[in-house]
């Protein structure tokens, strides 16, 4: 645990951008299974924060607590200065329009076309946009961002894994979120498609200046995209640092992540 302290206690940078998202002391268990045991995390505006952890270590549980899909046992979760554990449904929904969520398996609605998939988030959040922009233009614009205008009338079952991930990304982008949460954006994709998705994520980040939280167990993904990284081990934020710092560490628990 010594190393954790060292890296966490780096000199605090005074001109750090504002905090957009913060988790303090998050606990969550399912019966006997203690998944999160006091997890902490801070996301600053405009950065790409990668959280790495083994499969089954509770990464998805953490990110689901973050958007209120799961209730935490204890701890505080602050998203853009609002404590989401205390919000009512209505305010939570408004806040969620500013948070994009890319699900692990894309989670496209498979009974709807690509167009209907993208229109779906707009049904409840039309007030976020001025009435001049019509839905159709927004859908096409979002698909252009991911290079898939031609797939607009296809069904999800007609798309490849990489295309599905792109459409899911477009669906996430259509509400113009300020924060994007990616749950294993490259899982289940071949290395080349993974790289394309990663580049796309970087493009989006520069174009819209979003803050991103990226969950992954893919070292390459972490290398390309991370400004900072947190390792989630045994339900706690075991260590924080840049990719360079962590990959040079001597701690066997940390090294295990970077051994290829």
């Amino acid at each position, binding site marked *: 645990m010594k190393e954790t302290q060292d890296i966490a206690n780096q000199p605090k940078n005074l001109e750090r951008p504002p905090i957009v998202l913060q988790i303090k002391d998050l606990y969550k268990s399912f019966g006997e299974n203690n998944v999160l045991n006091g997890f902490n995390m801070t996301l600053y505006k405009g950065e790409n924060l990668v959280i790495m952890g083994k499969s089954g270590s509770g990464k998805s549980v953490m990110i689901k607590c973050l958007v209120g*899909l799961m209730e935490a046992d204890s701890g505080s979760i602050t998203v853009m200065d609002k404590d989401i554990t205390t919000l009512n449904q209505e305010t939570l*929904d408004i806040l969620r329009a500013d948070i994009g969520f890319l699900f692990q398996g894309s989670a496209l609605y498979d009974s709807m076309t690509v167009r209907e998939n993208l229109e779906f988030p707009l*049904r409840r959040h039309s007030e976020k946009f001025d009435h001049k922009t019509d839905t159709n233009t927004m859908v096409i614009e979002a698909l252009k961002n991911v290079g898939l205008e031609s797939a607009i009338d296809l069904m999800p079952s007609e798309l490849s894994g990489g295309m599905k991930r792109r459409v899911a990304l477009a669906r996430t982008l259509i509400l113009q979120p300020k924060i994007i949460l990616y749950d294993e954006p490259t899982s289940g994709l071949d290395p080349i498609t993974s790289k394309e998705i990663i580049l796309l994520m970087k493009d989006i980040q520069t174009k819209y200046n979003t803050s991103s939280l990226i969950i992954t167990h893919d070292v390459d993904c972490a290398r390309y995209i991370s400004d900072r990284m947190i390792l989630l081990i045994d339900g706690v934020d075991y260590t924080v640092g840049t990719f360079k710092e962590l990959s040079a560490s001597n701690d066997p628990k940390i090294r295990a992540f970077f051994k290829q």
Partner: protein
Amino acid sequence: MSGIKSIENQFNSFLKEIGELSYFAGRYFKEALKPPFEFKELLRQCYSMGNRSLLLVAITGFIIGLVLTLQTRPTLLEFGAVSWMPSMVGISIVREIGPMIMALVCAGRIGSGIGAELGSMRVTEQIDAMEVSGTNPFKYLVVTRILATTLMIPLLIIIGDAIALYGSFLVENLKGNVSFTLYFNQVFDSLEFGDILPATIKSFFFGFAIGLVGCFKGYYCKKGTAGVGKAANSAVVFTSLLLFVIDFIAVFVADIFYEL
């Protein structure tokens, strides 16, 4: 000893399931009455349920009518009571056989379909995706489906009954030269309000049960593809059981009203 234990465990989990189902039903009524209403999705569900089950109900109804008439004919002939055929077939189909068998067929077709559809949406995180995009998935998926079965099952039962009666008429027409007008005049003469009303009320409950259990099993589907199969399967088993219980209660209640 262990046999008794396992029966006891099964009984306990059955009771627990009944409790959870009641809670689910309570939530349905609460959310069904709250705007916004998903009319478009409701219509789509009604259409697709009717569309998917109409042929099945028609074939089942037709065969029931044929078989029932063919099999009772010799017995009635023996007693010289063939002229009672329309009344007998009419009453038994409208009061009991029609609703029960059509509901069982629909439980297999519609109930399992709902269980599998919602189950796979749960497992692939589509339900979570709806929730974070600001649409209440319980309203959009569950309320519309339960409403649709509650409206469509009675309609399908009426159609099935009519086709069953027509099948019965065909046999009588071929074997006994009974005319269409004579046959159906006799059917409707023997049917009373007291036959039709309980059967209609009962079929609304059947429809409600099919939608409720299908949605319940799918909505709380366990992770993994095995979970989806189990959701679909147990939706049918549980619904069938529930249909018989409802039927029993309906006959019991109707009997009390007759006594008065």
